[in-house]
């Protein structure tokens, strides 16, 4: 078992990546709150963490969960926007779907992250890959698998 490094080291090494991913996943306005929630959750759980060898993956998993929580909460609260888009909204798409986000939250971590980054924050495949530490092809595969599963779940 690898000994746990001082949490400050974890912050120094991974906070910028976590912030970048959160900004991608929920936008600049929401990223700070999600960042706080992510690292507070991490700090609470840290002393009992059994495996220190994949701290980045652990943090990103927490961050994705917080980003999804954020999207779900935002579905219930109006979001401040600079400009209101002048487009017609079809019925059924304007209402954020509790069931949908619950299903997204239940996906395996990489699929969940790929879906959240693609549709929560409009990232292209190569950036999703960069955020997840995998190739664009692997990101595309995760997204594909995740969507397939969602369609089945929600059918």
């Amino acid at each position, binding site marked *: 078992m690898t000994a746990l490094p*001082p*949490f400050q080291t974890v912050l120094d090494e991974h906070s910028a990546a976590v912030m970048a991913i959160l900004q991608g996943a929920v936008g600049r306005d929401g990223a*700070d709150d999600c960042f706080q929630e992510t690292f*507070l959750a991490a700090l609470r759980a*840290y*002393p009992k963490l059994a495996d220190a060898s994949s701290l980045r993956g652990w943090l990103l998993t927490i961050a994705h969960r917080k980003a999804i929580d954020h999207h779900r909460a935002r579905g219930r609260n109006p979001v401040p926007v600079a400009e209101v888009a002048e487009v017609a909204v079809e019925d059924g798409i304007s209402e954020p779907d509790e069931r949908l986000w619950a299903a997204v939250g239940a996906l395996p971590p990489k699929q969940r992250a790929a879906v959240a980054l693609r549709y929560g924050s409009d990232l292209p495949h190569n950036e999703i890959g960069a955020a997840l530490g995998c190739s664009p092809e692997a990101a595309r595969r995760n997204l594909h698998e995740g969507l397939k599963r969602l369609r089945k779940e929600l059918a």
Partner: protein
Amino acid sequence: MKTATNSAIDRLKARAAEEGLLDVAYTTADSPFGPLLLAQTKRGLVRVGLPNQDQDGLLVDLADRVSPRVLEAPAQLDEVRRELDLYFEGKLDRFDLPLDWQLSGGFRQRVLRAINRIPYGQTRSYTEMARRAGNERAVRAAGTACGSNPIPLVVPCHRVLRTGGALGGYGGGLPMKQGLLELEGVLDGRSKT
């Protein structure tokens, strides 16, 4: 320039302190002898790293022995820094800081608590410290306890000398020990080793 991440980290640390998640707060502080590492728990000052010590190594050791929730949080140590600054200016002859003794146990802790009662500007021998800790014959162990003092400066192991007045040893190096004794007016600046 403060990035979004830096200010988010500042807020995170304030919240961590509020929620009692800051098990070990640390900072570095300047001194006439070089940078010091100061670390404290909720109970009190737990570690002072001297300029010649490996500060990263000390933090890893704290993560291992106290708690891995180790965060740089200078504001938590304002009072420690203030008293040390006054001490180095010769304006403070007694620290009034809560101490956390958890890094030393048994005989060592008894020696260190005895050392903590040596008044400013006075010295004692290793033999006397062994006696005050309850075992006059454990002079070598008393010396080891001084050498392993996790809270040097504040727990003034620099005030312990060999019988006869030779300086003995110091974790921060003998020039620092001599400098501290000169500051306290014990030595007049002549080398005495």
